[in-house]
């Protein structure tokens, strides 16, 4: 994953069952901090 490259697009479901995409967040004009968790144990 290279710095200054285009972030991979994704669409995932949130904990309330709503579909959320990266492009959708971008459309709101915000930066994004994506935090990938390890396992919850």
């Amino acid at each position: 994953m290279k710095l200054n490259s285009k972030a991979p697009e994704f669409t995932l479901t949130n904990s309330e069952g709503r579909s959320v995409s990266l492009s959708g967040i971008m459309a709101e004009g915000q930066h994004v901090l994506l935090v990938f968790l390890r396992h919850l144990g």
Partner: protein
Amino acid sequence: MAQLCARQDEFNSAHTRVVIVSFGTLPAVQKWLQETCSPFEVLLDREREVYRAYQLERSLWRAWHPRALWLYFNRWIKRETFYDAHGDDTSQLGGDFIIDRQGVLRLVYPSRDSTDRPPVDDLLAVIQSL
């Protein structure tokens, strides 16, 4: 995560949406949200397709690095909560990414081990430089 939660106002002020991605089950994620940090949105990636798209690695050795074992030992000493991994892959590593409004990666930080996260000050410094 507690540090991120404590400083959520700073991310809001910097027009940054903090999004958590987890491959945990929905019940496990809901329990985690209740007991840790609820203000941020959590997205579920059970199949870890997005983990793979962002090239986050699996490594049993790095996930169970002595630093991680020390962390768990300290949590056990303090009688802190342990979450059931529900049979999930405990070798999967996490990571942090900052994406600007144009969809460009401005921070790429795959965790070296399961305790490794960038300092919140560093995250905010990148965001404030955009």
